[in-house]
């Protein structure tokens, strides 16, 4: 049985971003339903989202330079196609969600504050109608991201707990011998 792992950088990026994205999803869904914590959560949401945008670009370049190890033998051709498609979808969403967030704040003429006096420039001119549209798109993409995460998480749980094929070893932060 193959025991090839992703490269160290790929594994570190995966787990750091997993933590960031999960945090982000919960902050996002929580802040829009919160009065008392709204401001605090939004103040984290903006810079965390931009950090994810930067990291997903780094990760994409890394992915092109370092192809992943081969699929496990336990995966059918159909499952392999599904895994590849969901990987592509995750990359696309992790790029688009923060970008749409940045664009929608620009269209709403909100200053895009990162920390202190440091802020990003707007990437769209002020346009309330466009803001309303992008705001809706941001929510829809976020739910799609959560659903994709759940599908990915379910598949890994199935392989780990039912098939017990050691799929997690490929992404383990520590070294798992060949």
């Amino acid at each position, binding site marked *: 049985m193959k025991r090839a792992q992703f490269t160290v950088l790929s594994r570190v990026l995966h787990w750091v971003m997993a933590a960031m994205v999960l945090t982000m999803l919960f902050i996002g869904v929580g802040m829009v339903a919160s009065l008392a914590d709204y401001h605090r959560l939004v103040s984290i949401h903006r810079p965390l989202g931009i950090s994810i945008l930067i990291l997903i670009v780094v990760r994409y370049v890394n992915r092109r330079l370092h192809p992943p190890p081969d699929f496990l033998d336990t995966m059918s051709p159909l499952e392999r196609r599904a895994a590849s498609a969901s990987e592509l979808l995750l990359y696309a969403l992790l790029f688009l969600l923060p970008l749409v967030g940045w664009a929608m704040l620009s269209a709403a003429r909100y200053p895009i504050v990162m920390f202190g006096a440091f802020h990003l420039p707007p990437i769209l001119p002020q346009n309330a109608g466009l803001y309303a549209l992008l705001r809706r798109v941001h929510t829809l993409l976020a739910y799609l991201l959560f659903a994709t995460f759940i599908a990915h998480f379910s598949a890994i*749980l199935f392989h780990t707990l039912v098939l017990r094929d050691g799929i997690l070893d490929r992404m383990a932060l520590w070294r798992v011998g060949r």
Partner: protein
Amino acid sequence: MRLVLIGVIILCVVGAFGYTGGWLTPDRLTPGRFIDGFEQVNGPHPGFRRNHAKGVCASGSFEGNGQGVRLSKAVVFEPGRVPVIARFALAGGQPYMPDTNANVRSMAVLFALPNGEEWRTGMNNIPVFAVNTPEGFYEQLEASHDSGKMKAFLDRHPESVRAMEEIGRRAVSSGFENSTYNSLNAFHFVNAAGASTAVRWSMTPVERFEAATTARGEKNFLFDALIARARKQPLQWHLIVTLGQPGDPTNDATIAWPEGREQVDAGTLTIERVESEDEGRCRDVNFDPLILPSGISPSDDPLLSARSAAYSQSFTRRAGEKKEPSAVQ
């Protein structure tokens, strides 16, 4: 068995997500429910702000005099002029209601700082706010058209009884142009050395105070007078910063700070143009009071985050709606 375990794990994650989003607790007071409350009380007015719905746009500049620099490192307090977008409005969610002197007047200002930062503030011509929590605000809103509910609300909120008496005793001026507008909520100014000062601020008019008359005017008499006055000459206000002392409450907008607190005149606001919302640049601006430059930060007043959340919800809804002409042209 293991499949069941997987199901349970997934259900827990989805459940935690849903709980965070308030899907499992429909009674939770969310920004959405808050704005629903305004819509129920005022009826639907698509395209308009859900509160302070009737208003006009204004523009001009603010000239800092440098006296605020010792309190806050915000660029706005350095000597010099920054452009402002402003809005004068009447409290309430009715965009076409007739003007009355009893109605609370507001001034909202967006200071566009040269480094790209912004400071937005919404101020009212009352000395204190009627409630000190978002929950209290919502209860008051729900009770606004129901005398039985209002009595119950006042019984539960003695702080609101005191505040409303104080608001009722205020001297109302003849118009927008000679009104004093107060931040009501407290904030913190932080200077270059990192020292923080609790503050509240006011825009106090250069125009002489003249008491409001009891005579009823035209439907838009307050706004029309403001527009006419601004056409004759620019209107000015001083930005007066009141410094809190240790022990002055920063988390209770129903309580005024004691008389005699040190005040600093940080600069002069000059309004050069007042015009209909349909032409002005203020309509599509959310005057979120927590859009602050570095050097001004929120206090522990629970109304601030709630205002930010509710304004955002109101803004998002109206941004996507078809615009009707404003009452004041």
